């Protein structure tokens, strides 16, 4: 994937989001649910409605293995939306969670994934156990390793770190990258993240994930590594751009003005042909000017 300026990326993303929103509104409007359809609930909701019958109906659809998969997923989505009703949904919450725990082991992969995702968002211990068991014994895994790690990443306690270390060692591709994202919560992994960030033989995505993780875990360590990467004309544009952006954001009190680094970045700004590197360099130089003015 060619490098892209972050502002341009943001614009594209916002346009895409707007397009999706418009499509989604159209789809919902065209569907015009008839009574009894899973998604119907949201349209008919009213503060005076008794949620009981509707919740029962949605749970029945979600757990009915003979129903079309889309109906079941719609029912899950509708139940998930009902949670936003807060206190009104409270009487049904326990049953909803129990249903999700059952569906986490459903024969249909998409249902399993949807249920596990919703449980993971609430850091459910049952789902956590299922996901960790799957990482330990891949033959019995309910979702792919990368997905399991993504879900386990909702737990800020880092309880999935030991499993992430194992996956990191044995995997390639998406699972390895998700493992790194989990290790980003572990101060004990800072040295490894620094090594990966500087390793030119690593994939660009791995290096950038490592840089972002290190910046959060140990800013001083990140700064040292980032300076080295930025000053290395043989290194790749993506990681140089990421490092520069990180340095621009690092505005801690202990950061003394550094003429050598400013010179390096100024030179890079004028010599680089990469729009991403140029944009990051501009951001860094602007941040440096702001800092010196304050």
């Amino acid at each position, binding site marked *: 994937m060619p490098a892209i300026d972050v502002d341009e990326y943001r614009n594209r993303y916002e346009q895409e989001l707007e397009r999706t929103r418009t499509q989604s509104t159209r789809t919902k409007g065209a569907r015009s649910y008839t009574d009894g359809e899973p998604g119907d609930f949201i349209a008919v909701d009213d503060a005076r409605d008794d949620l009981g019958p509707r919740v*029962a109906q949605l749970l029945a659809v979600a757990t009915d293995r003979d129903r079309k998969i889309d109906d079941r997923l719609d029912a899950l989505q509708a139940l998930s939306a009902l949670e936003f009703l807060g206190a009104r949904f409270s009487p049904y919450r326990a049953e909803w969670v*129990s249903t999700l725990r059952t569906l986490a082991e459903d024969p249909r992969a998409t249902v399993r994934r949807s249920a596990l995702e919703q449980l993971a968002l609430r850091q459910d211990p049952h789902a956590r156990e299922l996901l960790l068991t799957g990482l330990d014994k891949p033959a019995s895994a309910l979702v792919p390793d990368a997905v399991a790690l993504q879900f386990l990443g909702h737990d800020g306690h*880092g309880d999935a770190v030991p499993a992430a270390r194992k996956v990191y060692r044995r995997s390639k591709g998406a699972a390895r990258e998700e493992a790194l994202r989990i290790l980003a919560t572990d101060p004990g992994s800072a040295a490894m993240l620094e090594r990966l960030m500087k390793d030119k033989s690593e994939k660009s995505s791995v290096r950038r994930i490592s840089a972002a993780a290190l910046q959060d875990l140990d800013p001083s360590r990140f700064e040292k590594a980032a300076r080295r990467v930025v000053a290395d004309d043989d290194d790749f544009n993506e990681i140089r751009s990421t490092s520069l952006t990180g340095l621009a954001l690092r505005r801690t009190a202990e950061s003394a003005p550094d003429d050598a680094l400013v010179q390096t970045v100024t030179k890079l700004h004028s010599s680089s042909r990469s729009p991403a590197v140029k944009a990051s360099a501009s951001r860094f130089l602007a941040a440096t000017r702001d800092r010196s003015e304050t």
Partner: protein
Amino acid sequence: MTKTTAGSRHRSADEREHERLIHLARQDPDSGAALVRLLDERAPHHHGRSTASTNRLRARVFIEFGDLGLPSAAMPFVLEELESGLDPSTVAAAGRALLGATEPLPTDAGPLLVSAIERLRGNDEEVRFLAANVGTILPTAIEDLTGTIEQLGPSAAPARAALAELLEHHQCCFNPAVRTRLEAALHRLGSEDRPPCCHAPSDTHEPSTAPGGNDATLTTDLTTLVLEDQDGNRASFAERFHGRATAITFFYTRCTNPQRCSLTVARLASLARRIDDARLDCGVAGISYDPRYDRPDRLRTYGAERGMTFSPRCSLLRTIGPFEPLIDALDLGVGFGPVTVNQHRLDLMVVDSDLCVRAHRTRRLWSEDDVLADLNAATGVTRAQ
């Protein structure tokens, strides 16, 4: 409404280990004390375990107390869980532990059962400490706590006002079956609150003694321990706290229980304002259990979001280097999982200007009034000397 059932459950290695620990404790000649030791956050069997694992063992031990009898040494753990526990199953299990009490319950036990129900309203789930086969209907944590109140009956009479209020203001949060049971429980509590003489007094407001007894002077190792504040300023424990009475408490920014660390720091901020308003020569400080993760910028953001106005008398700190010396010197109740804290109690202590620990409050939520009184006492003691 028809209940669905939880997915099939097979015992994990973790659960088998818990079975073994419980079995060993039950074989002990003093099984009550052995079970209480299983709750100790610092015990080796908790080390390296996840929060979910430590919660599961706690729940199992609480259930044992309900069956075998509740030793008085276990009561603080039970009340702590009811007051500020987050995991619905563990909280419900703590409720069941009260059923094993042979002595009168503390006056706040009943109200804490009700406050636990209120707290779990938006977070209810089937209890996980009962064996479940496919098709089994398990009670939810709220149903289980309601059952506990029903079984305690008049023993939980001080809960009457709180339960009546819960039913009056929050009945829409419960399904009809639970509402009916809560009403039945209210009926079982009796028409009037029992006179206080029928219940053991609560020890909520009484600090425990300092480690090694009152007037415990901190060890040399601790006084030289280096602490860094939210602005990156470093000073030794002695340099930071000598010369002024200080309320010191503990927290970590990754704590997911809003009733523990978040509330502790918010209350510390409020306490600091009251100290300023009263122009007392005292200070407050919070020290992180998780020093490698809680860097100064995290401490600053976390405190500011909870109302702290930082000054030399009001700071959030981390150790430079390991946290363990503080655990040993101050007798802190905290255990660590693979990366960070897996279980901790509430610990607040007041040290006087000579670094003697004058009060140590553990497990229960503390009130600002009580800590202000501790600080005043510590200041007075210092002056008298």
